[in-house]
């Protein structure tokens, strides 16, 4: 048994990079896939829409931990040998894609229908309408909830510790087991997450308020 000292503290702090790295990779990969999901979700073809709805329902209707277990233990059955990193990145990206896809779907559909009709009357094609008219307006609405989801994603990375992925939570567990000082360790780990997430929460709320003012200004009403 060893005492809890500066080295132990630094060990936990150093693991922040893995929490941040996993969050960012999942956010970017999930964002790319989520864009696809959102577009499929508003497709004109019923079966394509159903596929996207099914994907979203599946990932939003089952625990992240189960998704992790299935990827980690079970893709091996299909001949893929996955190390913890790959498994975790795949699972979190798929998870983020479902949530971001659903958030962005809502933002795309929040753009007034008149915008579609106006663009159609200008003989723009569907992808031109999306690229030139809808997406730029939807992107503005999408920023606050997307930042909000980033908070959810950072917190969700703690679950990866359960399958042995070393990030802040797992590092805390290792130190707690070595020092028998959970009373010190876990509040520190909680504080680290708070310092990572709180600024993002505040940012999301501020952006939301600014957008609210912008869309409710008397000028925007016309």
């Amino acid at each position, binding site marked *: 048994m060893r005492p809890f000292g500066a080295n132990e503290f630094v060990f936990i702090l150093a693991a922040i990079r893995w929490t941040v790295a996993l969050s960012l990779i999942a956010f970017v990969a999930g964002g790319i896939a989520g864009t696809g999901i959102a577009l499929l979700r508003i497709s004109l073809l019923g079966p394509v829409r159903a596929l996207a709805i099914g994907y979203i329902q*599946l990932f939003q*209707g*089952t*625990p*992240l*931990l*189960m*998704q992790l*277990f*299935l990827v980690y*233990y*079970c893709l091996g*059955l*299909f*001949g893929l040998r996955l190390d913890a990193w790959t498994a975790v990145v795949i699972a979190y990206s798929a998870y983020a894609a479902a949530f971001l896809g659903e958030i962005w779907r809502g933002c795309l559909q929040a753009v007034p229908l008149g915008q579609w009709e106006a663009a159609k009357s200008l003989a723009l094609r569907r992808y031109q309408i999306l690229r030139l008219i809808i997406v730029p307006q939807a992107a503005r609405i999408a920023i606050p909830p997307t930042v909000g989801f980033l*908070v959810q994603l950072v*917190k*969700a990375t*703690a*679950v990866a*510790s*359960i399958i042995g992925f070393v990030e802040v*939570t797992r590092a*805390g*567990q290792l130190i*707690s087991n070595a020092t028998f000082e*959970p*009373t010190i*360790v*876990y*509040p520190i*780990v*909680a504080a680290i*997450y*708070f310092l990572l*997430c*709180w600024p993002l*929460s505040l940012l999301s709320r501020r952006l939301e308020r600014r957008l609210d003012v912008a869309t409710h200004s008397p000028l925007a009403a016309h």
Partner: protein
Amino acid sequence: MTYVFQFGIVFDQFDRMLAGAWLTVQLSIGALLLGLAAATAGAFVLTAGPRWLRAPVTAYVELIRNTPLLIQLYVIFFALPGFGLRLDANAAALAALVINFGAYATEILRAGIQSIPAGQIEAGRALNLTTVQIYRLIVLFPAVKTVFPALASQFVLLMLGSSVVSAISASELTAVSNTLQSTTFRAFEVYIVATLMYLAVAVAFRAAFAAIYWAVFMRERGR
């Protein structure tokens, strides 16, 4: 692919998994009821309570909403005994879920209450109602109606999130699955069945909330 699926092993133990799923449901509903009670008080304090009480409630909400449920669980289960409060795994799991859901629901209810037009509250005041009467008779019903969908989806997130309490070996569905997996070595079969059970519970809860919403808020409310 040479792997042969053997679901028979899982279905031999199906009653254990059902018992685990039942505990998941119980934990979630317990957290829902206790969390809502805490949230009602919390949202009342944030919107009408004494000013000195608002800061601690805000701190509670922000602290919980910006840390992972898993860490809240570890603090309660591993760190609190250092301060002389020792809970068994299931009790710690329930406590963590209540505290977690309470914070989210406080924030959701607060938003709902603040969406009530000020004129309605002033009208209540003009009728000489006390603050508590105004909340009970005027504010709460439409506020809950406004935020009901948000509360329902937050609750489903909580139910799914409750799978992490397996990390302190509370005996709910995920923990039962882990035990079965390690005794049968049939990881895929066990986890896919558990995942489908979670999906079924989530779908059932969503349907139940839609039914409650319809019964309470949408039906013609006759006198």
